[in-house]
Structures are given as structure tokens and as C-alpha cells.
């Protein structure tokens, strides 16, 4: 399986470590009044879609960048990959 790294081109998936759902990037504000409930959802609740899923992958054996990889969980097709910092900063969607 190859992951299309936005900077380095196609790279072996074995160079990456899988973390999980990309919504992990949106950590709730700890000062919110409902922070406890928000953190409970953040830590324990995940969507488990059969189909397109956005997830975090770490290029551990490469340039050590975090990527948001869009993958179809049914067919295992890799649809795209973006730098997680760009996604977080709103450079790309």
C-alpha cells in the first residue's frame, strides 16, 4: 500500500504509523463549562464509517510529518493525503 505524501510523493505505508480518526486534531477547550462531557466524547467516541474516512498517519520512518489521509475503509483505496499542519491551519480543506 502506497501513501501519496504531499511533499515526498508515493511512500510505502510501512514507513507510517497509524493513529486513527482525524477528528482527534480538534481537542475541546478545557476551560469550557461542559469540558468534562466534551472530553468524554473526544476520548471515547469515534465514528466507524464503512467508506470514506479521514485519519491521522505519522511518517515515522520518513520525514516525521503528520498526515491526514483520506481512505476508503471498505476498499482500502487511499483517496488523498494532506499535511496535518496545513489542515489544522486551514491552508487546505
Amino acid at each position, binding site marked *: 500500500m502506497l501513501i501519496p505524501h504531499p511533499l515526498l510523493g508515493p*511512500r510505502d505505508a510501512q514507513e507510517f504509523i497509524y493513529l486513527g480518526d482525524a477528528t482527534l486534531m480538534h481537542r475541546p477547550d478545557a476551560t469550557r463549562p461542559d469540558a468534562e462531557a466534551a472530553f468524554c466524547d473526544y476520548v471515547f467516541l469515534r465514528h466507524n464509517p464503512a467508506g470514506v474516512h479521514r485519519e491521522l498517519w505519522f511518517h515515522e520512518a520518513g520525514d516525521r510529518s503528520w498526515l491526514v489521509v483520506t481512505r476508503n475503509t471498505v476498499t482500502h483505496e487511499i483517496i488523498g493525503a494532506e499535511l496535518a499542519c496545513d489542515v489544522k491551519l486551514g491552508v487546505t480543506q
Partner: protein
Amino acid sequence: MTDLIPLTALGCTAARHEKIGAFHLTERPNLALASLSLRKGQAVPSPFGLVLPGPGQAVWSGDHGAFWTGRDQWMIEANGQTDLAALLKAAVPNASITEQTDGFAAFELTTEQGADAIDEVMRKLVNLDPHAFEAGSATRTTLDHISVFLIRRAPDKLSVIGMRTYAAALWHALAQVARRTDADIDARLSP
């Protein structure tokens, strides 16, 4: 003062060299390394007159070189410097600089058979497209489960920089792949 004898990563007093058919495998004990990381928002500097390369690339100029290791992060190389980090810190005082020489061992594989032989070595060794990895390319990847920096210094010259504690295992991996590739080339050339 204590009289210490410097040893190479392979435990010898001189750099190891092995001729394997049409391949030459050489240890480069005098390659100094220091990592350079920019602080947030810092402009890209040009230490030692180097134009720091973009992702997947390497540059050289005289005794110095640099290859990209991550966003806003490079490894700087120098031949025979004993304190490269100090020189680099003097050249780029605001960046984060770490001495790396002692952590790594550098090997160089060259061939008399031209670029195709290095391409064949790469096909056996790493999961990268050898045609896309042309002269001036550099990347970090895995080879025989060992994490390495791979630099193609010329079409027929591949540099492998790996963790120093893995020097012997890395040498074994490179020597073995050179032997196999040489045997394959011989088999094709013989009638």
C-alpha cells in the same frame, strides 16, 4: 593527556573498503553531521553558502553539503570537521542546531556499471522508485528494518547514513545486496 585511538563506526582504525565485483563499498568516517531546525517564522538561511534544498533533495558545494530531513529541517554535512555544530551555530545563531556526527555511520556504494546498477540495488534494498530518485535526491527511509538516510550523490553513487550502533548490520546489508546485484548482472552478461 590520555592518548586515545579514534575508531571508525566499524571498530577499525582505518575506513573499511570492500570491492564486490563491479561495486565499491566504502566507509566514510570523516563525514561530520549537524542538524539544523528553523524556529517558527524564521527565514531560510544559507550556511556555508549552501542553498538549502527542498523536500527530498540534497545539495553540495565544496566541502559542505545539506539534505532535507523534514519541514524547515536539514542535515548539514562537512568533510573532516571536528566540531561542525559550533561552526554552524556561528553561521546561523538563531536556529536550533544539534551535533549528529557521533550518532551516525556513513557508507558509500559506487559502481563501475553505471546508473542502472545502482537502480537495481535500490530495487532490492528499498521501496522507492529508483528512476524518480535521481542524482541530488535524498530521503529518509527503511532498509533491512534499519532507518537510514539515502542520498544519491551521482547516478552511480549512493550514500547511506544510518545509526552508528547499526553500522555492522548496515554494512552487511549493503555488501550482501551488492553481491547479489553483481551476480545478477554477471548472469545477464554471460552468454
